[in-house]
């Protein structure tokens, strides 16, 4: 293996890791605050790309990519609030909320996927990249779009971290995740923050869709595979925290890049699951979870 190959694997691993991190943070946020797994998260990714395409592309409104991104992120935030109100809130008091939420979010994902197929058709579309052209670094070339993802994703993740750590609302979100009853008794508006965490997760998923739309062709089911990866990442990293999945995302991204190079794309998915199972056998709380006694 030449140094160039190693570098190439490293770069594509970081690109994948950045996308997984953005997805996994959203899933983990909903998971920690509401205690449910949102199966519609993958559709948020798809819709992020389709909303942006509809506004930005010449075959849509043709207002340019910046407008497309702004509209898509805002629309996803609204959709996140709506999803929480319709799919989760009516069932909050039920003992089997976790199970009900699996069904409602899966139903919503199916509904939205087919709605996208009906309204936008099955023909693959492509979103304009964030930046045109290629850049070469250390002797390897990568697209400017991928380079932008590598730079922007950590900035977004850092902002999310700052929001959760440094603002009153962010610390209230963490408080709900740690002890809901104590949060209620401190006067924290738990229901409103549920909606906020859904909105934030949906916006982040929308951004992932926009980033993906510039790399691959868009299809109504484009979010499914990334969501499964994000699920692996979240479980692998330890579901009880936000930072665990972020770190795990980069580990998984790099691992995937190595696997694709060494054993091929066909076996990569299986290899990732083998690694996840092995890690969970040794550390049941996840790679970065449960560090304290």
């Amino acid at each position: 293996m030449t140094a160039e190959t190693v570098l190439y694997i490293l770069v594509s691993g970081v690109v994948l890791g950045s996308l997984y991190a953005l997805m996994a943070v959203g899933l983990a946020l909903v998971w920690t605050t509401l205690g449910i797994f949102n199966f519609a998260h993958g559709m948020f990714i798809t819709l992020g790309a389709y909303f942006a395409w509809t506004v930005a592309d010449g075959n849509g409104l043709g207002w340019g990519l910046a407008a497309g991104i702004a509209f898509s992120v805002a629309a996803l935030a609204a959709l996140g609030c709506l999803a929480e109100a319709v799919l989760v809130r009516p069932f909050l008091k039920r003992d089997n909320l976790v199970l009900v939420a699996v069904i409602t979010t899966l139903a919503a994902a199916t509904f939205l996927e087919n709605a996208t197929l009906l309204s936008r058709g099955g023909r693959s579309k492509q979103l304009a990249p964030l930046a045109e052209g290629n850049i070469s670094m250390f002797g390897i070339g990568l697209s400017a779009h991928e380079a932008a993802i590598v730079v922007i994703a950590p900035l977004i993740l850092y902002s999310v971290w700052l929001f959760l750590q440094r603002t009153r609302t962010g610390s209230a979100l963490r408080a709900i995740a740690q002890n809901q009853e104590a949060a209620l008794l401190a006067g924290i508006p738990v229901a409103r923050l549920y909606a906020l965490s859904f909105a934030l997760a949906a916006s982040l998923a929308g951004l992932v869709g926009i980033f993906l739309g510039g790399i691959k062709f868009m299809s109504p089911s484009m979010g499914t595979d990334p969501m499964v990866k994000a699920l692996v990442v979240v479980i692998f990293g330890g579901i009880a925290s936000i930072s665990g999945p972020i770190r795990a995302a980069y580990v998984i991204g790099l691992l995937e890049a190595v696997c694709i190079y060494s054993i091929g794309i066909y076996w990569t998915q299986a290899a990732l699951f083998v690694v996840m199972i092995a890690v969970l056998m040794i550390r049941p709380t996840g790679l970065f979870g449960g560090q304290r006694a």
Partner: protein
Amino acid sequence: MQKLLEVDKLASGYGRIQIVRDISFSLATGECLGLFGPNGHGKSTLLKAISGLLPCWSGSIRFAGQTISNASPRKIVEAGLILVPQGNQLFPEMTVGETLRLGAFANAARAEEASNLERAYSIFPRLKERDRQQVWSLSGGERQMVAIGVGLMGNPKLLILDEPTLGLAPRIKDELCDAIGAVSKHGVPLVVVEQDVEFLLGLVDRLILIDHGSAVREFSAANSIGHDEIMDMYFGDGKVA
């Protein structure tokens, strides 16, 4: 006299299981009240219903002139009624300082955040030393101090403490009892649930015995109660003269 809290014929419970049956009592402004009685007879359930964590099945609760039965916990906190629940684990992965500041989340408490923090630190100097320590690493007694501190940060018009000394070593318990006395001296009206009736007698104006989900007896703390009488109230038929 003006009433701060009026509980009238309250019934509540979990799911379909009724725990609290027909409890009525009231609290005058400036008064401190003690609740005691055997375990599993509805004291904590009563407090959860008052603070909005459990529904009121029937009856009513009025606080500071407004009806708060079946209001959301947030609205009740905003009104100034704050519960420090039994064995509160708080937010394990937050620092003491962060946790205290979250106690001032309510709009009604924001303006007084700085002075309330100072008050909490003056009553519990140990919390100031532990300001940057995570809550999970604290001892049981320190955690209880944080829990009461969080309650004080909510700028309470009435602070309700549910068994604040439960499971603490005697020395820590004494320290905490003194601190609760200091809270009361700062002019915060208290409702305290305790098994230790002697501690309650030194702290509150009036005591209520809760038994089988009802308030069976009420007496002034000024008339001293003998040990035998307390034993009889716990284990007897609750009808002693």
